């Protein structure tokens, strides 16, 4: 069964540095999402992306965050200047075009981001 893949599985970065988290969504999916889960807390929506533009973003997704689909397979989340509170597990998800919002989102295994 096709899967969403995320790299790296663990990223350790100094505060203030830029970090890019990478995702390869399922190949016939065209809706992409980023969520994050701070340790011990619930999964929170960051951003959704379709047709090369942001569809929706949360208040967490401020100017230090950006997303990009640089080619036909990758979907990236960039954090420009990391803060301690950005430490979390970041999940990428994708869903099909056909069927509308009743299609489930399929998640990758996440990237654990640790800011020192």
């Amino acid at each position, binding site marked *: 069964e096709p899967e969403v893949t995320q790299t790296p599985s663990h990223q350790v970065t100094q505060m203030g540095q830029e970090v890019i988290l990478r995702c390869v969504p399922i190949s016939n999916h065209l809706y992409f999402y980023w969520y994050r889960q701070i340790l011990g807390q619930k999964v929170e929506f960051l951003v959704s*992306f379709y047709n090369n533009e942001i569809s929706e973003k949360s208040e967490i997704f401020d100017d230090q965050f950006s997303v990009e689909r640089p080619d036909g397979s990758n979907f990236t989340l960039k954090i420009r200047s990391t803060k301690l509170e950005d430490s979390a597990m970041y999940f990428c998800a994708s869903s099909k075009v056909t069927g509308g919002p009743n299609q489930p989102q399929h998640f990758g295994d996440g990237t654990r981001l640790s800011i020192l």
Partner: protein
Amino acid sequence: AQSVAQPEDQVNVAEGNPLTVKCTYSVSGNPYLFWYVQYPNRGLQFLLKYITGDNLVKGSYGFEAEFNKSQTSFHLKKPSALVSDSALYFCAVRRNTGTASKLTFGTGTRLQVTL
């Protein structure tokens, strides 16, 4: 605004017994409801969804969920629990407009199944 409540942090059940994991939701309009399971160091795995129709929906691994509109609930059930069902379970709601609409998750319920 949309929200999900999972009132139990943990549910303990003996193997072979039925299990219920509770979820209530709030959303404008008709809801799209989902259950996901998370195993250690893994992502969220889709279990089942309610969109419309029959209030009892069946999903993966023998799980089912019952939608109750009047109580705004979507409880996850399984007739006979297995030790391998032990994991973190998340209920989620989505608006029924906007194809790329976000999922809003509950805080999760840890299911512990013992022999």
